[in-house]
């Protein structure tokens, strides 16, 4: 059970930094709180008392969303459900709705935030690989002598290991910026013990752009999680596929490439099988949604799955 002396809901960044300063060492930041409450139960952290819980979910800066031609800016407290109910976001970030639909369930997605998922830094986080594939950067802010000082870094550098990030004690994750990829097809493959409300054993984000004929791969972005300490971008596979014709031969070769990266603590053999299948399915799904020539894909699909 989670108890606290104060549950604080700052209305601005300045107010949040003041609260963090005055409760230094005895506070915890919460956003959606959907992981914090289950964490403070028997079998995990047990009964936990935190003197000050600071809930940043209502800070306007953290809720802003802006969709530009090249980049998308997402406030850190953006609930996951926005990727399913905001058509502009879905259009600009084609893999995110596919990721969101596998994230917890409709109810928790209404509350859980993108920033919370990133800062938790679970090796099985669903959002992080998807954003990494979108070239995401995080924006961190802290208060220095009354001024809000911001810094940025790439998301894959921000997450440093299981449940570890580069976030300093006095910092907040304010926003995420990532590439707008409106003409890409997006896919997200995930497996766990059940369909909803499940932690990924493996998850893979795929983004694919094809030429006008829907036959040649112009760009591809791939990121995977659940197979090691942190999510990774599959750059060598991307390099291999870029510029290639969409064909079963290349997809099959690409599907085998990341299996050697599996370094999870458990079930490595199973995960290698999953990775291979996900690569095929994820690339094919993304290609189909990117407007692949149905004739090329239909015949090649058969070949790929055979």
């Amino acid at each position, binding site marked *: 059970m989670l108890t*606290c002396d104060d*549950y604080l809901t700052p209305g601005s960044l300045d107010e949040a930094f003041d609260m963090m300063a005055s409760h230094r060492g005895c506070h915890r930041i919460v956003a959606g709180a959907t992981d914090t409450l289950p964490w403070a139960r028997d079998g995990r952290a047990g009964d936990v008392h935190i003197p000050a819980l600071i809930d940043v979910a209502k800070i306007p800066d953290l809720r802003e969303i802006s969709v530009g031609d090249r980049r998308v800016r997402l406030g850190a407290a953006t609930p996951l459900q926005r990727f399913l109910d905001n058509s502009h976001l879905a259009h600009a970030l084609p893999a995110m709705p596919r990721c969101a639909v596998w994230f917890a369930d409709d109810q928790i997605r209404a509350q859980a935030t993108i920033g919370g998922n990133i800062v938790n830094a679970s090796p099985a986080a669903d959002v992080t690989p998807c954003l990494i594939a979108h070239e995401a950067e995080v924006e961190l802010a802290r208060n220095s002598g009354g001024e809000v000082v911001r810094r940025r870094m790439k998301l894959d550098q921000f997450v440093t290991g299981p449940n570890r990030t580069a976030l300093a004690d006095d910092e907040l994750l304010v926003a995420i910026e990532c590439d707008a990829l409106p003409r890409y097809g997006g896919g997200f493959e995930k497996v766990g013990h059940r369909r909803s409300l499940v932690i990924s054993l493996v998850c893979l984000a795929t983004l694919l752009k094809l030429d006008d004929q829907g036959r040649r791969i112009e760009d591809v972005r791939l990121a995977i999680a659940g197979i090691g300490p942190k999510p990774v971008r599959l750059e060598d596979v991307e390099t291999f596929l870029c510029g290639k014709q969409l064909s079963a031969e290349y997809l099959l070769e690409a599907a085998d490439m990341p299996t050697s990266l599996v370094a999870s603590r458990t079930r490595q053999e199973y995960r290698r099988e999953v990775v291979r299948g996900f690569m095929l399915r994820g690339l094919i799904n993304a290609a189909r949604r990117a407007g692949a020539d149905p004739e090329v894909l239909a015949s090649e699909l058969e070949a790929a799955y055979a």
Partner: protein
Amino acid sequence: MPDLQFKATINGRKISRAAKPHQRLLDFVRDDLNLTGNKEGCGAGECGTCSVFVNGVLMKSCLLPIAKAHNTTIETVEALAKTGELSVLQQAFHKAGASQCGYCIPGMVMAATAALRANPFADREEIKERLGGNICRCTGYQKIFDAVELARDVQNGSLPATVLFEDEVAQGDFIGKNVRRIDTPGKVSGRLKYAGDMTMPGMLHVQVLRSPHPHARIASIDISAAEAMEGVEGVITCADVPGEDGFGVFVNDQPIMARGKVRYVGEAVAAVAAESPLIVKRALAAIKVIYEPLPAVFDPDEALCPGAPILHDYAPDNITKHIPIRVGDVDKGFAESDLVMEETYTTQAIEHAYLEPEAGLAYVDQDGVVTIVSPDQNVTHHRHMLARIIAKPISKVRFIMSPVGGGFGGKEDMIYQGMLALLAMKTQRAVRLVFTREESIISTAKRHPSRTVLRMGLKRDGHIHALQMKMICDGGAYGLSTEGVMRKAAILAAGPYVIPNVRIDTFGIYTNNTPSGAFRSFGALQTAFATESHLDMCAERLGLDPFRIRRINAMRDGAVTHTKARLGSVSLMRSLDALEKASGWESGAPTSRGDRRRDLNRNDIRPPCTLGARFVEAEKPEAAE
């Protein structure tokens, strides 16, 4: 801890009240407003029994710190319809038979309401997806999905409202007809009170101190600091049991609270009743128990070895129960067989996972009758046991069975009612204990894990000639229903098959694991899993169709079982026919991959789990534009 001034509009009423900063919205609506329609099934966002609308968006109120709901508009299940009325969805749940125990149903109705608000034309796959955050343990979901589809069609006008009316049934003609359950309106509306929903004036809250050790001698228990705390009204240990301690289903080997030693992690050691749950928690932390850990045994085969730790003095061999069955001459039977196959089968512990965690309310009434209200699957037996344990005549002990929010055998054991009785007697107040989900899982009975060695001898034509089975089951730390489970496992071990030579031994063994007990099928699952799997493998070896090998051996009307029961009628052949038809069975020996699966153009087999039904529309070519 300064209170928050919490303001909201709840079910159309403006609320402004002090709330504790750590309270969840669920606690506030249930405890402070007495809106108990929405339940707490897990407290961790997994089950959806607590789903409420916040500003029109469905959320899990167990995950919502109350401050998050400040200045919002909240609707609980009570808001869906006026008293005495039901929403279209609730009527559809009634019509379709979608509620059984009912505990998940308020949350399920809320989730279904949200799903049809999001998409009034959602198809079945999308409905499944949108209900993905809500668990039901009784129905298998099909009738729930039927109900949502029915409501969808009535709401969007494609079916008349009359389809929600009860089917007309001629007087007295009920067999084979759909008859609505009379208890459904109370369940779909959230009005039915389960034990955890009930309160009484002056009621105290109870929690239990549990053993962290699998096997340990209790050197001492010091409750003085806990008893001295303000707000603590009663602390009990085994020393408070006035009569002859010990309960069970077949052997009374389990004390109300650990006596002398603990035998599994999670065993009750002491209990506290206090004015608030937080005070109870502080008092539990103040109880000092000194344990002297003992060697523990976790594997039933190891528990049978000489020198293994002994759990109970009365059973120095750690055997809770051995059931032997002997028919004919098995050794001769194997010698006469054309094929003899032996294999080992294992099954694991399984949690019942009813949506309603254990809960109970107890008080001593004006006539001195100790009264316990709880979802108890065996009230009469428990009443007799408790009378002996608290040394009262049977007329001074009363058990009231509250609605059972799922049991499946898991609520047949008197795991906590004794503590409630003792605390009600000690404090002279009403006392209530509500388990957390974690507590329910750690402390209550599981399905027996089993290891079965099965040897079967068959004639070339498929007739089973001899069967020998030895099953070792992990009964855990206490007997509970183990004896009965072993008996039924043995009785049903050879299946509904005519077998002339049979030797069966089932053993329930004490270990320091969580006790095993009753669970649907009561032992038949473990032995049937072995026997039926084995038959398939024998069919493969003999080149026979698995249905055929079963028909060859099937008992017919008038058969005598291997425990000498004469069966007047046997429906096995009809069941096999129906199963073969319904499953789309491809006949032949099970030696090849079928050619009629979904991936090969068969459309009536369940596809692999996927999500994204809501995207289907978006992926179609944009012809409309």
